[in-house]
């Protein structure tokens, strides 16, 4: 009688960190494109997760994202990061009109040099990430149109005892959306980091 052999997948903290930070890069790019924060001409197509995602070609924006995500990568590997939040604000009033929140739950028992047994294989994780990206893209259907000039900012929630790397970083507030409507999106996990997604938006931002 054939015996089914259960295949075990392994993942390291480094690999999980890379996967999650990569997801953040593409998710943030997709949000910025879909919400029209930057002109669509400044985005180019790229194949990722079996999808065609749009990635910015604006050098300044790219440098900002890379800079912030390098630090996020460090904090992900230190297991001290709790949230990554993309805040969209109206430039004229500085009012927060949209807030994309990615909650990160870290498995504190993970060690940097020891591979862990993963619940899902890499393909499944990428499929889950693709589902989240797809939901982000599809969320344009229910999110209100932003008919005014907007800018964005990335916030990182860290452990209280986290040391700041340089003078470029500073403490700030959570920047919540007043009278918001929340929609929870799909989540994915790498067995070390679990990322839950949520978007909170102002129902009538143009008023």
């Amino acid at each position, binding site marked *: 009688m054939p015996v089914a052999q259960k295949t075990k997948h392994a993942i390291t903290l480094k690999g999980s960190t890379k996967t999650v930070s990569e997801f953040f890069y593409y998710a943030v790019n997709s949000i910025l494109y879909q919400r029209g924060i930057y002109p669509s001409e400044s985005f180019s197509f790229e194949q990722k997760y079996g999808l065609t995602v749009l990635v910015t070609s604006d050098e300044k924006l790219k440098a900002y994202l890379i800079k912030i995500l390098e630090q996020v990568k460090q904090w992900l590997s230190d297991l001290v990061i709790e949230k990554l939040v993309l805040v969209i604000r109206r430039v004229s009033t500085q009012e927060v009109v949209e807030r994309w929140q990615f909650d990160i739950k870290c498995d504190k028992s993970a060690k940097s040099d020891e591979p862990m047994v993963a619940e899902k294989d890499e393909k499944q994780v990428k499929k889950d990430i693709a589902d989240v990206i797809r939901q982000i893209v599809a969320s344009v259907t229910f999110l209100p149109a932003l008919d005014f000039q907007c*800018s964005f900012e990335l916030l990182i929630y860290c452990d209280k005892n986290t040391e700041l790397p340089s003078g*470029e970083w*500073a403490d700030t507030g959570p920047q919540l959306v007043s009278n918001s409507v929340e929609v929870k999106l799909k989540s994915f996990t790498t067995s070390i980091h679990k990322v839950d997604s949520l978007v909170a938006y102002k129902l009538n931002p143009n008023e």
Partner: protein
Amino acid sequence: MSNKSAAGTAEASSASAAKRRCCFQETSSSVSLSSSFGSEDMQNLPPKTPLLGETAGLGASAGVSTASAAATPMELGIRDPVLKRYSRDYSRSFQPPQGPPPPPTSAMSNRLALQQQQQQNRWRQQSGTFEGDSRSSTTSSSDFIAAAGLPRQSPAPSLLGDRRQQQQQQVESNVKINGLQMRLLAEESARKWQRIEADQQIHRLRDENIRLQSREGSTEERSRLATVTAELQTVRDEYQDYRSKTQRTLDDCQRNVTRLNREKLELEERATADKERLALELKEARNRVFELTSRELRMTEEARMQAEIRSKELSEWKAHLAEREAQLEESSKLQARVNELELQAKLHESERARLKSANEAIDRYEQVRQQNARLKEQLAAAKQIRDDRLVLEEENRSLRGRLESAESRAATLAADLAAAQTAEAKQSDRSANQSLTADHWSSESARLASAQRELALATAGRAELQIAVSAAERSLSESAAAQSEAEAKIQRLETELGELKRRLRLLSRERDMLKEFVASYLLDCTLGGSGSEQAYLQRISNMESLLDDYKRQLDEALAEKSSTASAAPSRLSLPVESQQQQQQASSRLSLGELASKQEASLVIELRQQITELHKRLAAAEEDKEMLAAREARLSDLGDADPRFTRVLHLVQNPAQEAEEARENELAELRKKLEKALTRCEKLEEKLKNRAAAGPADGEAAAATAGSSAAATSVIGDMTRDVSMIVGRGDLLAEIERLKTELDRKDLQKQRQREAFRTNTEKMREAVHRLLGYRVQLESDNPSERLFRISSTYVDFDEQDSDKTSFLFRLNDDNVDLLTTDYVSEWQSDVRHYVQERNSVPAFLATVTLNYFGSSTTLVSSSVMGATTIS
């Protein structure tokens, strides 16, 4: 989502194709498709009207075998009752024509029989084809639904009903077309049969004619031949009539066929339109299905998200419930603690009673101490008595010694007395002789009597002393027992005092613990109002006052104890003070009773406060739950607890940059606005000034100008002026400086130009005078370098014309002599000097010499003048 739906549609189409295949297999199995049908037979099939959803493969493969040619529609596996009905009708109406059997002998007849058999096969094939078509239409109708990607239970029943009705109409129209075709074919076949019959009859008559011609010899046969010929002619005529009739019928049939084909085309067009409409409806249905699917997916997703939210809320509620239970447990603990405190209050009451008894014991202790002191005094007295006894014993011993000595003296004296008596007797004899010794005897006797008296007295004293010693010893033992008892009582009281001190310490510790507990509880009840906090504080202060009261009472008791201890020795001597103290003790007892009553009322008050506190605690718990829910919601929304979390961002971020850019833009706009405002103010001032300068000017201006252009120019001047004032106000000094500089430069340039012009004139004059030619720059363009040269010997009025001057163009490496009328006069010299020798100066010198030779007088005067000058 679109991909998913597309995939779903693709799956549906593939499923429909599979279903179509399955249907085909079912149909083919039920029809038992025969492979014996060759391609020729297939080609001979009549043209088939394509049905909706029917494929070429289906149509091409729907044939029947000869074995199953007579099969009924039921046997052919047609399940649709409508199609069965049509099939039955057609099978009934399209029976192969029962023509006359062919003649068995002739080859023609055999051929005709074969043709008839083929025709019958065709009819059967047509019938089978139609039945196959009807089956395929059934199949296609089911496949149409499957190919549409729709579920079998359509989301819109009316749409499905319409579609079925349309399909039915389509099928009916197809059936009608097929029926017409079949009827046409039947008529054609009937005509063919009639023609065949006529042909057979003609052949038969020909055969008979041939046979009769072979028997031409007999007259009968001739007459018969003539008859047959006439019959033949008749038959021919009939045949001609029949042919013409048949031709007409054929024409009618052709017309019918044309009409039917037209109708068929119309029906096909209608079918195509219906098909397109159905395709559109199918598309709409697909869109609707897609919308419904997407909506369902979205709703599923929303439901899932809501379920997650609900589960999260449930878990939160569970957590809240657990927290509530913990709080309830805590409150029950608090209730237990309150009960314990009440119990402790009762214990305190008992302690108070014990303290009261301890006070009483202390009082007793004082009494005992007094008694002890008394006993000590007695002991001291007893000791004194003992000392006295010892002294007495010593005296007794001395007395005994003395008694013994007295006894010994008495014995001595008795011996002396006996000796004296013997001596007296002897001496009586000798009395006479010794009269003097009698006196001595009497004194001795007196002394003996006194000694005897003293002895008796000493014996009595000794008895008395022995009695006193025994009494003293008895009292001494009694005082020792009383002392030991008093010491035991003191020891017991000291033990009780230590116990009370220990209890006091325990109570103090418990009080501190309760304080801490209440403080922590107050910290937990952060939402508790100031009233509950005050109640707690009041309760604590009450307990503290109660404890202080206990402490004070204990201190007083200790002080009293110490005072009574210090006053104990004097109590024996001062019974009045002890009485006063007893009175104080009794008054203290009455105070204790009063305190117990107060404490009872305090306990009741405390219970009331506890009840009130419970109510406030419940309200505080509700507030706490609300706050916890709000906090949880805020936490879900991304609120950060600064005790555990830091929210960080890059100082230089896009939002900040956008804000800075906007601020810069706003600052620039503000500057522009300020400028514009200033400009407006200046304009207004200017207008006011102009208005004040005199309306007459304005009227005059209006009268003179009278046009909007003038007004515009005025406004333009004003604007320019205001611009000068506003926009360049700060640059006026610079402008002035630049203007001064410009004037200076202009003056310098003017001077240089004048100096250059003077020098140029001098140079030209010098050239003219020295070389005999006037040189003029012909073109205004300095880069062209075109010079007109005229000789000084030519008339002055003619010097600048082309007839008396040469035109030279100076290039970088050579000089071109331009062709003019004047040059042609000097053709030979030009050729000789310029073209051959390439020397313009020599040419010019030749011209000068020629002129000089021809007009000596004129030149001589001028040359003379020049010589004179030089």
